[in-house]
């Protein structure tokens, strides 16, 4: 089975029922798929993995976007969600909740190490030098937005990050159930 399909399957099957829209992009040597998740999907996934009730409640209040990316270039593509822009229909920035936010939150909630580890593996890395043909998949979490929002994902390229910057735009995304 080829790797893009594996990534797509992972992204699709990590959470059982898929949300309605599945924006996808393929070009400039990057394949990228973005899929918002419903609070019910989030609750079901983490509840089934034994997460404490308080953690499940906190997680289901955030907006989860599952992202799958594959580097189809011959050089390195830098995955750095901190460089990505999220903004609502009025152009106001939408806050991303980085790993550090969840680590602090889980600390307060007393979430056990095993659950924290599992959560970490379900998130998109904060930094990754994607090698040629390398796939990556995981979630980014946002403060929930009413209405639609836009993602502009920027990627530096080249081992020294001096290659062309690639910007991919996904419009009309939503946080389902908000």
């Amino acid at each position: 089975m080829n790797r893009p399909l594996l990534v797509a399957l992972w992204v699709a099957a990590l959470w059982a029922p898929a949300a309605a829209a599945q924006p996808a992009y393929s070009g400039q040597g990057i394949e990228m798929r973005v899929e918002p998740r419903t609070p019910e999907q989030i609750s079901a996934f983490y509840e089934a993995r034994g997460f404490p009730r308080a953690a499940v409640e906190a997680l289901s209040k955030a907006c989860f976007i599952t992202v799958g990316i594959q580097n189809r270039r011959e050089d390195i593509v830098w995955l750095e969600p901190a460089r990505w822009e999220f903004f609502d229909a009025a152009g106001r920035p939408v806050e991303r909740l980085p790993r550090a936010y969840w680590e602090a939150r889980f600390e307060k909630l007393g979430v056990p190490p095993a659950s924290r580890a599992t959560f970490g593996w379900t998130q998109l890395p904060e930094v990754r030098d994607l090698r040629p043909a390398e796939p990556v998949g995981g979630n980014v979490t946002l403060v929930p937005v009413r209405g639609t929002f836009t993602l502009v994902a920027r990627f530096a390229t080249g081992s020294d990050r001096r290659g062309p910057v690639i910007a991919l735009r996904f419009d009309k995304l939503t946080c389902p159930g908000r």
Partner: protein
Amino acid sequence: MFRFAVIAICFWALPLAVSAVEVPEGLIALDGRPAPALKLTDLDGKITDLAELRGHWAMVHFWASWCVPCRLELPAIATMVKTKPESLALVMVNTAETDDEVFAFLSAVAPELTTLLDRDGQVTERWQPRGLPSTFFVDPEGRLRYLALGGRPWDSPAYRRFLASLGR
């Protein structure tokens, strides 16, 4: 003098024997830093200590049952296990799941495979895989030599040749 020559040839020949076989696509070479400690038990409580596998190559594979690429890769691993060199140790490590979850999953999907249990996920954290699944190759001196990017077709001819070269 003779002993020195034999040792020198062994040091020279070990990497050469591996490099003679093409490294398949999807494996990247690592810098040879020492592998992190790994000492865990399996579902029966049997302890495996990576340090005790010195002298042979070890394939250390991190996985979880909720990870779909991990699940898709398992049949290839199950097939590969039947043909891999005996001296190549397969060390499977489940990341942060319970004994019940792992037993229910493996007994249904790949009963021929055994796995160690990293119950709190901390061993996996120390190894810093690039994601799940992840497979590291540890050389006979206990150093990290290769990393597989995501799930790989371990039962394909290119991978079989590569794995066979590690058993020489």
